[in-house]
């Protein structure tokens, strides 16, 4: 196991960047295009995790553990966010029998 860093460094860094960019864009598109609140929440998670991946990759390339530290922070915050987000969606569903966000447009100018 000894040298995970060396192993990871065998993969070019551009691959990681391209992969996480693709994942991030998928997440953004999901948020933009889907109406289902649960899917939107999943897409937000996707964006967060694409960033996590990038951070972990950079961390490995630089040999600096701080990036991985930040990844754990993001994971904890994301877990908390999901808890709150799902609770909101549950309340949404109870009140409207639907998880379609397009009917929640009361905050109109």
């Amino acid at each position, binding site marked *: 196991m000894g040298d995970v860093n060396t192993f990871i460094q065998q993969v070019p860094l551009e691959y990681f960047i391209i992969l996480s960019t693709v994942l991030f864009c998928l997440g*953004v598109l999901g*948020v*933009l*295009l889907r109406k289902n609140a649960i899917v939107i929440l999943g897409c937000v998670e996707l964006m967060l995790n694409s960033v996590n991946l990038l951070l972990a990759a950079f961390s490995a390339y630089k040999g600096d553990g701080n990036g991985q530290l930040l990844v754990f922070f993001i994971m904890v915050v994301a877990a908390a966010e999901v808890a709150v987000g799902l609770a909101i969606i549950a309340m949404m569903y109870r009140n409207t029998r639907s998880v379609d*966000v*397009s009917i*929640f*447009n*009361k*905050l*109109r*100018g």
Partner: protein
Amino acid sequence: MENLVYAIVLLPLAGFLINGLFGKNLPKAFVGGLATLVVFASFVITTSIFLGFKSDSAPVVVKAFEWFRVNGIQVNFGFQIDQLSLMMVMIITGIGSLIHLYSIGYMSHDKGFYKFFTYLNLFIFSMLLLVLGSNYLILFIGWEGVGLCSYLLIGFWYTNEDYGKAARKAFIMNRIGDLGLLIGIFAIAAQVNAIDYLSVAENSSKFALDSSAIIFITVSLFIGAVGKSAQIPLFTWLPDAMAGPTPVSALIHAATMVTAGVYLVVRSNFLFSLAPSTLNLILFIGIATSLVAAFIGLRQNDIKKVLAYSTVSQLGFMFIALGAGAYTTGMFHVMTHAFFKALLFLGAGSVIHAMSGEQDMRFMGGLRKKIPVTYWTFLIGTLAITGIPPLSGMVSKDEILTHIYAKSPLLWGLTLFSAALTAIYMFRLLFLTFFGEFRGTEEQKHHLHESPAVMTIPLIVLAILSVVGGFINLPHFIGHGHFQKLAHWLEPIYVYDIETPEILFATEMILLAVTVIMVLVIFFAVKAIYVTKKKNALPEESYTGWEKLSARKLFIDEIYNAMIVRPFEEAGKAAAMFDKAVLDPIVNFIGLGAQDSGRAAKRLQNGNVENYVLIMSLAIGIVLIVNFLLK
């Protein structure tokens, strides 16, 4: 003594506050009694200070607190007790309490009774600040205060639109003078770095005689005096001020407030003595005012209007004295005039009261028998103002004439002519009102009655004062100046030497004889016209030539309207047009622009969360692309 000085000023203020806050629910007797008592108490206190004050006592400055200090000029809120301020306070509180007493009777049927006494007390308070203040700024506070009270009291019966207009006219014309006074005070502060009388007097010697700085200061102060004391060209407000209740005319517009200008000049004698050119200006304005006002007084038919023009004319006499450098004589005339003019106004009030509100003398006549107390006291007042010896008016007026003769016999002639006009209109007033047949309606005749005691007692007291008031400053030739008590009393307040005219005893006798004979001749001539020939009820339309000029007040109001009021109105209209045509569209454009852009931006916030995210993502994308391109 300090506490006593505070009491003098604060008692009327207390009366003002109590009557103003609670007077509505208090009985009339209490309101009137309280207002009169506080002023009378001030008078008693002043008298006690006066008795302990010697003619050579140094001025006492009572400092309440330091008001502010700016740029090295320290301004205290304090009062100065000296010979001059004591004299003025005696006049104000003495005559003030008599007029308060009189008002209890005169205003007894008015529903604004408590309001009237509230204003009167406030007036006395302001007037006391004016004369007691130890520096020019306190004088200015009082100056504005009396102006305000004058406005309030002229417009006391504000439901009459003309009265409201008269009040505004008085206020606005006074503002012009006030600005002069304010500029004068600033100029003093800039020049000598102090505005309290004692320091300014001390440092006044730094001014060269007739230097431009001193002329600027004195002329500015004099403009203030011109406004307050109704001199040419700002005198037209005073006759209109007769719209107020008669006691107000007596107190404010005859005895006290209008003499504030004279007080200001005498108080600033250390400045005016250094500016002979300004004194000459004062002299000429005084003569012109006394002549013009006396001329207009000849053919006025409203009893109060005659007295108003007479007041303007007499104020002119005071300024003649000041212009001749005879400050004491000016103050002397202030005092005697306060006695007999207050008496005349209160007498006129009593006549109006008896006539059920009628003020036109052409519809009076024969009141001599019906209201004897008023008649006798009014007669004394008339004889005093016209100059029958040995009444007070004669003594002070003779002093003015003597001083002016020493300066120039020609100006003496003009002043004497003005005195002759005074005698003519006053005797005309007397004969039209009290002699001949009654010319009013039957109803008025039925109602004729003498006024109650609260009104006649002040008349009697003032009549006595009008007789003996002159004795405090008898001419030099009687007892070799031993009886010139007032001149001796006021001596310490003059910083620079006052020259006394050197006139031969014989000349002085001749001048006196000329004056007295002239007045007697006029008496009989006027009597012949109005009593024997009965030329008394001519309608104003029948006036031609000079009579019309006099009755229409020399068309001065019309001239002012055409020259000042109209152009201002036109300028105002032009400014309004500019505002509507140019400024409004600009302001509206900005306002509408903000409104429209807001309405457009509102569409972005449609409540659809995806849209927000889309815009955010696009924006981030644009930022990234721009960033990339710029590299």
